[in-house]
């Protein structure tokens, strides 16, 4: 395997920071959610790379659970966005500033 593991970790760090900037900068809540998914995937890549480097498969088990939790979180988060939209009719994070309508 000629690609050093640090290359995978660097790529994971870059994708993670792109996702983090996306979460902070964008106002559309769906795009914020996509930034969260980008961060989760970057961490998954990092876990798999380190699992391969150390020869233990525990990192892959962790990634399995991260994927499952991310799926559950995506479902619930999008349901919340839908319910929020049904009341406020906006997807702009700047305008969703009260806990109660």
């Amino acid at each position, binding site marked *: 395997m000629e*690609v050093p593991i640090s290359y995978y970790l660097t790529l994971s*760090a870059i*994708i993670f920071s*792109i996702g983090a900037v996306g979460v902070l900068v964008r106002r559309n809540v769906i795009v914020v959610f996509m930034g969260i998914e980008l961060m989760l995937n970057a961490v998954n890549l990092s876990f798999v790379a380190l699992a391969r480097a150390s020869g233990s498969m525990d990192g892959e088990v962790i990634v399995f659970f991260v994927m499952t939790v991310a799926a559950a979180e995506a479902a619930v988060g999008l349901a*919340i966005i*839908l319910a929020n939209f049904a009341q406020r009719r906006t997807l702009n994070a700047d305008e969703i500033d009260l806990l109660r309508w």
Partner: protein
Amino acid sequence: MILFFFLAILMVASALTVVVHRRPIYSALALINTLFLIAVMFVLLDAQLLAYLQVIVYAGAIMVLFLFVIMLLSLEGEERGTGRLGLRGLAAISGLVLAIELSALSAAGARASVAQVPSSYGTTESLAERLFTRHLLPFELTSVLLLVAIVGAVVMARRKA
């Protein structure tokens, strides 16, 4: 090695598209692209089952959910950009700083050599063997978590009668 750099450049370009593009539908498509590229990286790292799961679960289920929601709720039109110009530049610079710092930290702490793994590494059988013996408790708890998520999503999206 060339394949890795090719994939890495495509992945960074897709990730930037997710974050930068004004219309959310193109962000979602770019995110699907990124997820497929991560699945290819998993194959490069001998994680076969995770590559399948990445395509089926992440790119196949979660992103379809995203696309449903975007297509349901995009009557508002496009987002008007990301606000004042000074903040955008500051965000880009701080993102760059974060990327450099994380890369330096992670690359410095990585192992120099990659372990030799048997040919059964990352296959469905070996991952399942681990999942159902050593990590059985998190597995069962995750199934309870999924049940809670299903109930929660149904309750949240229900129309108030």
